[in-house]
Each structure stands twice: as C-alpha cells, then as structure tokens.
C-alpha cells in the first residue's frame, strides 16, 4: 500500500527479484572463480549471459540505472569473449563493483524502496575499460588479418556445400520422399548443416492461410528477407506474456507473418518454444530486437525462402528477385552463430528430464503447508489422548494408521524444506575476496560440507552470523602478509568452513590460522568495560574467558572482536549454540551447532500463575521438588548433589504474579557451565511442540523464543531460560 512500490509493477517485480537474486547467487560464485581462472571461457560466457538477461529484465521494468550498468558490463564481457580484452585485475575489480551495485540495488527493491544509488563511478570505470580496447583494436585486427582470411575461406567452402545440400533437400522434399540414405548423409555432413535441416522443418510448420499469404506478399514487395525465429524461454509459466512481448517487439522491426503456436493456442500449450515467421529489412534489426527480449534461454534465426514455405511466387503475384549473395551471407551468419552457440554449454537431455520432475513452489505456500501439518500433528496428539482417556478400541486402531500417515506427511514436508548449505557457502569466496580487499589482507577460503541440508528458515537465519564470523576473523584474526612472513607463516591466511552432521544437529566450524584470541586479554578488557566483576575472572576457564566476547558491548581497544553478541543472538534464535576456541598464533575456531530443523521441540510444560509456559528440554538438567528454598538476603539457594545452587523465582523475573506455596518446584538449567535453579508453581510434564515465531510487535517482551499451540488450542509461550537470566 506504500506509494514507493508503485513505480514498478508489483507482480513483475516479484518475478524479477526472484530471478535477480538467483543471478546474484551465481555471480557470487562465478566472480571469485574468474579471478582464479581468468582464462575460463565458460565462466565469462556465464557472466555475460547473466548480464544480458539482467539488462533486458531491468529495461522492461524501467529500471534504467540497473539496465544501463548491466548493458555496459555486457559490452565489456563481449570484448573479453571476442578476445579483444584480457581479464585483468581492473576488470575483476570493476566486476566486483558492478555486482555489489546490483546487489544493493536489488536489496533496495526488495525492501520496497526506490534505489537511490550512484552508478556514475561504476559506469565511468566500465567506459574507461571499454575505451581502452577501442584504441587498441585496430592494431590487433591486422595481426589477425591473415588467419581471419583463411577462416572466411573455410566458411565459404562450408557454405557452398551447405547450399548444395539445401538444393538437394528441396528437390527431395518436393517429391515427398526422404529416404533413409538422405537421413544418414545429413548426419554425416558438417554440423552447420543441422541448421539447414531445421530450416526446412521450420518452414513446414508454417502452412499459410490467405491472410498470412497477403502479409507475406507485402513483406516480399518491400524486399524484406524472410526469417524463422525460434525462441526458447526459460520460464514456461510466463510464456504468454513473453510471447506477446516478443511479437510486439518484432512488429516494430518488421512484418510478422505468422507465429506458431498462434495467440489463441499459446495459453493452452505447454511449451517453452515459439517460432515466428517474419519479414525484416535487415537481419541486424531482428537480432537487436531478440536481444531486447527477456528470459530467452536460446534463440535461433533461420532464413527461409518462398520455396521452403511451399508458396508459389505467382500466388503472391510479386516477383521475388533471386538473391544468391544474400543467401550466402546469411549462411555465413548462421555458421558464425552456430559457433557461438557451441560456446554455450548445452543442457543435457537428462537435465531437461529432471526439470519436468521438479516444480517451483512459492515459499509462502510451503510455509502455509508446514503450518497446517503442524496443526495436524497437534490434533493427532489430542485425538490420541481422547482415545486413551475413554479407552475406545476402534478409535485407537484408526488412530494408529492416522498417526503413521501424519508422521509421514510431516517428514515429507520437512524434507521439502531442506536446502543444502551450498546456497550460502558458495557466496563465501566473493565475501572473503571483498573483505580481503577491504581490510588489506590476503586470505584464501576453503569450504566443505555444502551438500548438508538444513531447513530453509534455519539456513536463512544462519547466513548472517556465519558471514559475520568470517568478517571478524578476516578483520581481527588474520595478520597482514608482512606480519605473517615475519612469524614464519604462509603469507596468505586461510579460512576453512566445514560442516558436518551430528545426530539431529549440523555442526559448522569456521577456522582461521591467524594470531589467535588471548583469553586473558579478553577477560581483562571485559572487567575494564565493567561487563563482569573482577572477582569472577579467577574462576574462569579459558573457554569461558573467550566466550566473554559475546557479551553485549564487548570489544577490544580498537574495536576488535566486536560483533560477537549479535552472532550469538542470531545463532540462539534458531536454537543453536556458539563455541569459541583459540590457540595463540595457530588457530581460532568458531563452532555453530545448529538444529537441522526448527520444526518440533521437546519441551517441559510448567505453570506460573494460571498460565502455562514451555521450556525447551535441551536447556533443562533436571527438575525437583523441594520443601523450601532458603533465602540468603534476596537470593534463594538450594542444595543439589552437595552443591549450593542459586534459585530465581521465574514468575518474579517475568513479572507474573505467582502462587506462594510451601512446596516449590525447581527446574535446574545450565548456564555457561553453571547450574541455576528456576522456581516455578507447577511442572506438568513433557510434550513435543511446534515452534512458531512471535510477532514483531512483541519485541518488548524479552525472554521468549517463540510460542506454540497446545492441544486445547491455547497459545503457550516458550521461555528461553538462558537469555532470561
């Protein structure tokens, strides 16, 4: 409902953003790869194609800044493709700039803001790179002169034999027979001839009616060349829109004679390919028009003649001049195109088959489905308890099948939501590369375990803390090259990210081989900042001292090691834990232990006042009933296994009026290796609960990690006992 969203069409925007973030993901992976392998043609082609699509998509939505930037980048890469330019540091750095520009642009759009970014410096950079080539290019072509000539000769020969073959084909198809021998011959001839074969098949698709013949006659009278354009689209669901966009665009440059499928059929057809018969003055115009289209996965342009179309010239009452030369020209073009096409890695049949087995589902639908199944699980528990309560045998039997089905359903949906870590890992190289530049360090990144899958929600929440840890390690742990050499270390620092599965959890470690974290320095600093009392330091282990960096407000004197508090918070919000280990000058290791799925949680139900609350069982050491809590001043203590344990009244902490009874129930939890007791009114038992997030409006209420719906339909808040104290 905000005005700012009106500057582009919302529906298209969503599709565009989807696609754009896919592109960005790919670029995050491709750019560092290009940096390492500047000669890698495939990578250059891939980036080129992404820029090309981005340019087109952005143009349609009127995002001219983005479109222009992508366009210039595309031009630059085109020069690289044509070997007029070599990938060097400047180009890489320009590409990184372009990607971060696109990334902030897309982010602004996703946040429903009008992006106000300055593209001028990037454009200038690209322009200057482009300019440098144009100066050089004239000299270059003379060097190549000789080889170009021989190449042209070769093409000429191929074209001639192609023409011969074409003539043969027309004769044989006129006779209405295609012998197997011809088929074989076809296959044996040069690759370029494949196009010829298609050419004829294309032409046969177009059986023209009178109106279409009239259009054809008009095109011929204007001396237009006839072409069959085959467009293959990436996303079949948008085919109808793309179809009309294409026809409109073509109408601007020439006469569209016929399109297959027709406008009426297109909505019903499940195809990703359309073919258009068109007459244009210049092939270049047509190709420019195609380049401006969106979402094209591949295209093909074939010149056709009236004979190909099976139309008699006399029928059109206009004489068509036989123009062998232009035909030859077109064949040249086609061979060139064919060569270009070959540069693109073609999708294998297997991939295409796989595509059909996969469906893209909106994340929202998946979430909704997930919620519904969560409800179903709750209802199931309720029914089972009713069956047990009234001891209804028939119901119990029916429920045992029901239970199995519901469990299977839940499992399936959990599986559907799993996304491999690779999705965030593959962004690491670009991030590390950018950070290295920013902090002037030399860092290599290695990662493994990308195949391990996590719930997409968990994955989403994980990326920020993971990247933040990497940033802190590059910034504050890894030394600059000179220092490293002096210490006798390899001049380039290393960060290793490693993921593996352990039971129901995924362990992710981030290691760096920098200077290490000094536990005593950290403890001293924490006391200095007043974050902990000086007396507590003595009893602390090194691990505990290192964990002090996660206290809110902690940083070393120059701001070093700041940011761990938000990391810890994010990790804990997805039910994970954070550990830090360091050995001076050898290794610093940050470990995340993350649940694979946030779905269900084993929880202890307790009562405070007249409301139920849930405490995750993972946090609970044990529960007990005591006759009384000894008060020492305002602090309660109890004895547990001959240890004295501090007890807090949970109701008081949360500000809930509690019943005061003689008997007290204590939930023992462990916080940073220390046992702490929480006094509650009643303990009701354990239950599997489905965790649901709390509204952002409740941000003031601290100490709750979410909520769940109990069997009776009431909402029960989940207490996070660690953060509450």
């Amino acid at each position, binding site marked *: *409902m905000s005005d700012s969203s009106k500057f582009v069409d919302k529906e298209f925007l969503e599709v565009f953003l989807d696609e754009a973030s896919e592109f960005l993901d790919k670029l995050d992976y491709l750019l560092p790869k290009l940096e390492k392998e500047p000669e890698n043609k495939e990578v250059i082609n891939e980036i080129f194609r992404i820029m090309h699509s981005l340019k087109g998509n952005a143009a349609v939505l009127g995002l001219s800044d983005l479109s222009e930037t992508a366009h210039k980048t595309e031009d630059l890469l085109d020069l690289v493709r044509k070997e007029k330019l070599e990938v060097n540091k400047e180009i890489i750095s320009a590409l990184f700039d372009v990607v971060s520009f696109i990334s902030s642009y897309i982010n602004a759009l996703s946040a429903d803001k009008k992006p106000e970014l300055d593209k001028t410096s990037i454009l200038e950079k690209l322009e200057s790179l482009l300019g440098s080539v144009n100066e050089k290019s004239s000299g270059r072509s003379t060097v190549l002169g000789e080889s170009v000539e021989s190449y042209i000769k070769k093409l000429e020969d191929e074209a001639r034999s192609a023409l011969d073959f074409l003539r043969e084909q027309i004769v044989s198809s006129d006779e209405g027979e295609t012998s197997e021998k011809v088929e074989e011959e076809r296959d044996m001839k040069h690759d370029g001839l494949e196009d010829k074969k298609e050419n004829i098949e294309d032409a046969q698709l177009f059986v023209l009616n009178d109106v279409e013949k009239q259009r054809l006659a008009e095109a011929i009278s204007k001396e237009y060349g006839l072409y069959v354009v085959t467009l293959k689209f990436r996303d079949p669901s948008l085919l109808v829109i793309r179809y009309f966009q294409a026809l409109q665009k073509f109408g601007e440059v020439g006469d569209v004679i016929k399109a297959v499928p027709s406008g009426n059929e297109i909505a019903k057809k499940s195809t990703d390919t359309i073919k258009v018969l068109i007459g244009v003055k210049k092939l270049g115009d047509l190709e420019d028009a195609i380049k401006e289209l969106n979402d094209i996965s591949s295209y093909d342009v074939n010149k056709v003649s009236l004979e190909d179309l099976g139309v008699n010239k006399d029928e059109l009452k206009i004489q068509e001049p036989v123009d062998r030369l232009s035909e030859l020209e077109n064949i040249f073009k086609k061979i060139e195109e064919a060569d270009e096409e070959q540069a693109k890695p073609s999708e294998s049949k297997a991939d295409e088959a796989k595509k059909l087995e996969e469906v893209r589902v909106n994340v929202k639908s998946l979430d909704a489905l997930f919620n519904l199944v969560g*409800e179903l699980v709750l209802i199931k528990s309720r029914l089972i308890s009713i069956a047990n309560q009234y001891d209804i045998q028939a119901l119990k039997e029916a429920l045992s099948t029901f239970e199995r089905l519901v469990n299977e359903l839940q499992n399936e949906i959990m599986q559907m939501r799993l996304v491999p870590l690779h999705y965030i890992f593959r962004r690491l190289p670009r991030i590390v590369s950018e950070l290295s530049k920013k902090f002037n360090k030399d860092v290599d990144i290695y990662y493994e375990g990308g195949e391990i899958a996590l719930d997409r929600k968990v994955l989403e929440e994980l990326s920020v803390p993971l990247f933040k840890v990497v940033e802190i390690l590059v910034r504050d742990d890894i030394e600059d090259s000179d220092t490293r050499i002096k210490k006798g270390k390899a001049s380039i620092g290393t960060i290793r990210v490693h993921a593996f599965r352990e039971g129901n959890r995924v362990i992710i470690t981030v290691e760096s081989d920098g200077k290490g974290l000094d536990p005593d320095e950290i403890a001293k600093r924490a006391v200095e900042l007043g974050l902990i009392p000086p007396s507590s330091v003595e009893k602390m282990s090194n691990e505990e001292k290192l964990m002090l960096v996660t206290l809110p407000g902690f940083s070393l004197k120059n701001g070093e090691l700041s940011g761990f508090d938000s990391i810890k918070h994010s990790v804990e919000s997805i039910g994970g834990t954070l550990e830090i280990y360091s050995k001076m000058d050898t290794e610093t290791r940050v470990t995340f232990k993350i649940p694979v799925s946030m779905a269900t949680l084993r929880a202890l139900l307790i009562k405070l006042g007249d409301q139920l609350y849930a405490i995750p069982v993972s946090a609970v050491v044990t529960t007990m009933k005591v006759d009384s809590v000894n008060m020492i001043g305002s602090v309660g203590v109890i004895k547990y296994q001959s240890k004295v344990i501090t007890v807090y009244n949970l109701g008081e902490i949360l500000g809930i009026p509690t019943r005061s009874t003689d008997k007290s129930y204590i939930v023992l939890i462990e916080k940073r290796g220390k046992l702490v007791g929480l006094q509650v009114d009643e303990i009701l038992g354990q239950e599997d609960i489905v965790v649901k997030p*709390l*509204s*952002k409006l*409740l941000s003031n*209420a601290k100490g709750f990690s979410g*909520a769940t719906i109990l069997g009776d339909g009431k*909402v029960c808040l989940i207490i996070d006992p660690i953060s509450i104290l």
Partner: protein
Amino acid sequence: MSKEMQVLVFSLGGQYWGLNILDVREVVKIKNYTQVPGAQDYILGVFNLRGQIVPLLDISVFLNTSRGNELREAVIISLDSELIGIAVEDVIGVYRVDESEITPPPNEVGDHVGGIVNIKNKTVNIIDLKKIINKVSGGTALQY
C-alpha cells in the same frame, strides 16, 4: 459522481468507530488469549487463529478513549504478511457511505481519526489505520 466506501462499524469505549472494509480481513470472537509478560501495555496478548499466533491489540489508548465493557470481538487486519487482531467491544455491522458525506474531524479529536460520518443517526469516527499502526510498530518495525 462520488465514490462509495464500505465501513465496518464497531463500538469501543462507548463510542462508534469505523474502519475501511478493505483493511479488514475478518472478524472473530475473542475466546481466550495468552498474556505476554513484558510486552507493551496495548498488547493484550496472543491468540490462536487457525494455527497462526496473532497478537491482540487494545487500541483504545491510541483513540483517547477508555475501555469500559468487555472486549468481545477481534477485527483481524493484515500487516505485511502478519495478521493482527484489534480488540473491540462489539462489531455493529458494515455500512455503505458516500465519501462526500465524510467530514474532516475537528483538530482536537486527534490525528488517528481520518473523518467523521453519520450512520443511522450515530456519529462514527473513521479510524486512520495507518497512523495507529505507525504508533504500534514505532513507525519502523513494520511497514504498512
């Protein structure tokens, strides 16, 4: 020709209030809700709406009115993709009004009232939901 608008009218604090029907998702009876310790005063709690956990707001504080009777019904609105329940005493009904009949409110009423209209001889204050939501979300946490 002037435009018509449909207004959902409810009572709260002895007065009649209206919301543009386009802002309203549905109306449900308040059966029970769970209080959230530590949350802002105007948050009564959270309740279960077909498996979704929805915060229930008492907006009387923003409307400068006092809450007299029991809050029996919740008007559900959608904010971003999140649902929010606004607790009201009773939903009276939905009425068509001509936009030309809506008069701007006098200054002293406060900026939460977008206009005043007479429906069946009752004065109905039409709430500017955007303003209320901005206050609720602190203007930043959520975008309407």
